[in-house]
């Protein structure tokens, strides 16, 4: 029977798993595979696993519970070992690595921040600050058939969007970096100029949140800051 793995903890983690369910349509009970120094929270792997909301929630809920009671290394969704014995063997083989990671993450939480900027406000800024963009815009407005100028305008604007988004992302990241112990930049997305996870000590969580609030206030209504956390430290294992 294949074994689905949720997390790895130290052997002395309380591992309170009551009320939690595993992944799959008919989830098997959660159980613990132990080595001398570590424990893995596992369940039987369902025959067919898809990234359904139900299963993602099950995975995430196990990790969130573990996170409240001690350090835990969150596994990536969908990781399956051949059986419990081989999970135990993996715990033993990598025990030094796991011990070190658990120590690094003890008492620390992940916060994910995404920042988006309203496109119209960005376009308005570009048109206000770039004479060339404004000239091309005025020209194409009065000459709707000026295909070449339209392309030139779009090219200029798209270059400016990228440069300005990157600059704003770097600026915000630099401003917030001192409030966290570590950060992991996942890179901009189509919708977000910044998508970065922060590792924050539990005791500093309120101060970190305050720093993000202040940044959001400073950047104003054209920017949307979305802060998620505390999360299991997915980005720092």
């Amino acid at each position, binding site marked *: 029977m294949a074994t689905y*793995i949720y997390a790895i903890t130290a052997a002395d983690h309380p591992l309170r798993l009551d009320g939690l369910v595993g992944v799959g349509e008919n989830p098997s009970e959660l159980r613990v595979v132990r080595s001398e120094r570590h424990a893995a929270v596992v369940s039987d792997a369902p025959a067919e696993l898809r990234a359904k909301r139900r299963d993602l929630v099950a995975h995430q809920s196990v990790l969130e519970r573990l996170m409240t009671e001690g350090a835990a290394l*969150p596994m990536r969704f969908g990781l*399956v070992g051949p059986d419990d014995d081989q999970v135990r063997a993996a715990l033993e083989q990598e025990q030094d690595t796991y011990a070190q990671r658990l120590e690094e993450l003890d008492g620390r939480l992940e916060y994910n921040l995404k920042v988006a900027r309203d496109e119209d406000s960005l376009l*308005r800024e570009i048109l*206000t600050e770039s004479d060339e963009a404004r000239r091309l815009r005025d020209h194409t407005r009065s000459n709707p058939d000026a295909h070449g100028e339209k392309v030139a305008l779009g090219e200029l604007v798209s270059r400016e969007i990228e440069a300005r988004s990157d600059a704003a992302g770097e600026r915000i990241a630099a401003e917030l970096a001192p409030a966290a112990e570590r950060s992991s930049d996942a890179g901009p997305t189509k919708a977000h100029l910044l998508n970065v996870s922060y590792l924050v000590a539990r005791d500093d969580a309120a101060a970190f949140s305050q720093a993000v609030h202040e940044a959001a206030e400073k950047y104003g209504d054209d920017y949307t800051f979305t802060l998620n*956390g505390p999360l299991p430290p997915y980005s720092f294992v």
Partner: protein
Amino acid sequence: MSLVQQSSAPNSTGGSGNLYDVLELILDKGLVIDAFVRVSLVGIEILKIDVRVVVASVDTYLRFAEACNRLDLESGRKAPTQLTDIVGDTVESGAKGKSKGALTGAVEAFTESFQGGRDDSEDKDKEKEEEKRPARKSSSSRRTSQRREE
């Protein structure tokens, strides 16, 4: 300013309320054990957050050009009152929609508890409904209080 803060702490939303925002962490980050396999996840690509790809295509350029041409640089300054009015209306109708929704929910729960007898299962349903509603209320007041802090 604009800040959306979502706590995924256990005992609040159970992590499901903001799942979309943390999807790429659950699917792409986290620890792997090299010797083990990751089950093939059918259809996972569409769930993943789009990594920004700079498409240097004429279509993209034309879209930006159109967006610029539509944009009125003066609109914000020339007619601030009008803009405020529109925003005001939106907020108001949004609030109306919201309170109507809550009201409908309450009426349904009320009806449910009166319809169909007094047996145990009905009472349980009623209890569930009552459990749900305060939970929802507390989560929205939590958000509001966060906004107030800002």
